[in-house]
């Protein structure tokens, strides 16, 4: 089974985010970059599919050359090959533009299944997987917390508000991943894995190489024109006043009921 994983590099979730001087982007100088956690779950699922069915795992990513490090991380986990779409035209684009580039890269691969995170922890667009599926005219199954395949079909379990749904699709299909680290336990790269990753094939491509019209993919339909920080929350009141445990409980209930009016 040939699996393609769409992988985004994002800032670490413990990062402090600051707005850049242009007012519409964030300061990236001092950020630590990681594989988007939901995409890391997709890499783990891809490797499990490969272990069961054979075939290969290809990582498709986009962005500047720093993204190579994240593709190598996925290769150190066990992915076989990589494609980085590094084209300045995508910088000013939107999710649909990126999806056009990713869909074109998938078409070149002859993939049986495409896996990716349900969202990225930076801009939380939550668009990539379903958009790529639509552009390829493939079905998609979103927010998997488990995945199984017999080689012809793929089955996932999906969490929705107040319940769980089991979905199935014939292949080819796109599957997006939800869940958490506890659900997927993505494997760590082994030392031999890290050594091998350095030699695995990684191609850098431009939109033109993929037959994508940069004027269409690179033109944003929607863009972020300004950023703002949340209103800072100041530390509130510590319930103390020399009270004992029971006294603090009484005081907190009173404050929530009478002052905050939330209970």
């Amino acid at each position, binding site marked *: 089974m040939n699996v393609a994983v769409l992988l985004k590099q994002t800032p670490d979730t413990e990062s402090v985010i600051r707005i850049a001087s242009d007012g519409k982007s964030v300061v990236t100088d001092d950020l630590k970059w990681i594989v988007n956690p939901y995409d890391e779950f997709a890499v783990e699922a891809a490797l499990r599919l490969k272990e069961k069915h054979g075939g290969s795992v290809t990582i498709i990513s986009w962005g500047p050359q720093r993204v190579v490090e994240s593709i190598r991380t996925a290769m150190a986990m066990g992915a076989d090959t990589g494609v980085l779409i590094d084209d300045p035209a995508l910088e000013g684009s939107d999710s*649909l533009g990126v999806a056009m580039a990713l869909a074109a890269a998938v078409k070149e691969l002859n993939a049986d299944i495409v896996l990716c995170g349900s969202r990225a922890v930076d801009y939380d*667009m939550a668009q990539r997987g379903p958009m790529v599926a639509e552009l390829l005219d493939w079905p998609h199954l979103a927010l998997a917390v488990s995945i199984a395949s017999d080689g012809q079909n793929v089955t996932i379990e999906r*969490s929705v508000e107040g319940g769980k749904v*089991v*979905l199935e699709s014939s292949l080819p299909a796109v599957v997006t991943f939800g869940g958490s680290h506890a659900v997927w336990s993505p494997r760590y790269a082994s030392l031999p894995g890290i050594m091998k990753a350095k030699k695995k094939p990684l191609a850098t491509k431009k939109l033109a190489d993929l037959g994508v019209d940069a004027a269409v993919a690179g033109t944003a339909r*929607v863009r972020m024109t300004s950023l703002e920080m949340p209103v800072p929350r100041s530390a509130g009141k510590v319930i103390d006043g020399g009270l004992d445990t029971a006294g*603090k*409980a009484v005081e907190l209930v009173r404050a929530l009921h009478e002052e905050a009016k939330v209970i």
Partner: protein
Amino acid sequence: MGKCVCIIAEFRHGAFRRVSYEVASEGKRLADAMGVGLCAVAVGSGVADKAAELGRYGVDKVYVVDDPALENYLAESYVPAMADVVAKCDPSAVILPASVDGKDFSARLAARLKAGLAQDCIQVVCENGRIKAKRPIFAGKCFGWCEWAEGALPVISCRPNVMDCFAPAEDKKAEVEKVEVSIAPARSSVKSMDFDTSGKVELTEAEIIISGGRGMKGPENYALLEDMARVLGAAVGASRAAVDSGWRPHSDQVGQTGKVVNPNLYIAVGISGAIQHLAGMGSSKFIVAVNKDAEAPIFSKADYGVVEDLFNFVPAFTEEIKKLKSSCS
């Protein structure tokens, strides 16, 4: 540009979900600001009989695709139907719910319509005829304002529990028009569904959330929080540390990897307040922290802090809430 603002209503188990009314209300405010009408698209099985009630929230006309083949949500079948009807409405903007299914069909629909999508918006405005929408990024560490290029259709999904819902005008009914759409055989299918009927409150829709972290020390101690939740009608959440330890299911995880929540009241119990957790709950309207470590970062975000051993404090607090509830009833 188009003739109306168009909302997409979410229909499940024979009824519109509450978020549909929030979206209708927000759509109505936008339509009024733009001086156009409000129409709705509703897809499902049995939806035609219920569609007129969207009029209570300001919808003038509902286009329904009602087909037994659309009993359960499936992106592959729903999106082409939605896209056909949206095209028929010729809208200036499409507003839809950023619920679990809503975020899914929004993305596929936007790609089909070659439109620009802003997910999970918390504010939509119209300035000089131009639409702008505000959305959290980095799980709420920052906010971004989205604007659309000339000629691009704005598709805006709204975060549940945020947009003000009108008090329903009980006597108002929307006009309902059935639309016939050819539904292609789907390659994907719903194999089974399992919904919790115990009345447990969903985290993203809860008005009060009580979350426990590493300080809970083990899964058995969450009974303390569940007792409190029962009294308050609250949902129980967890930090990543608690979920990674296997104490709580992943669906309870609050944070940047997990659910972003915005209840009226968030009570953090035994949670130190890692940056990624604070991002997931920082927009809660009111925050209470209970932790025995007075230096825990969570206190910097809390409206009320209690420095106490949770195992002593929580039972006492639950008892006091019970007293309050019985005196109110």
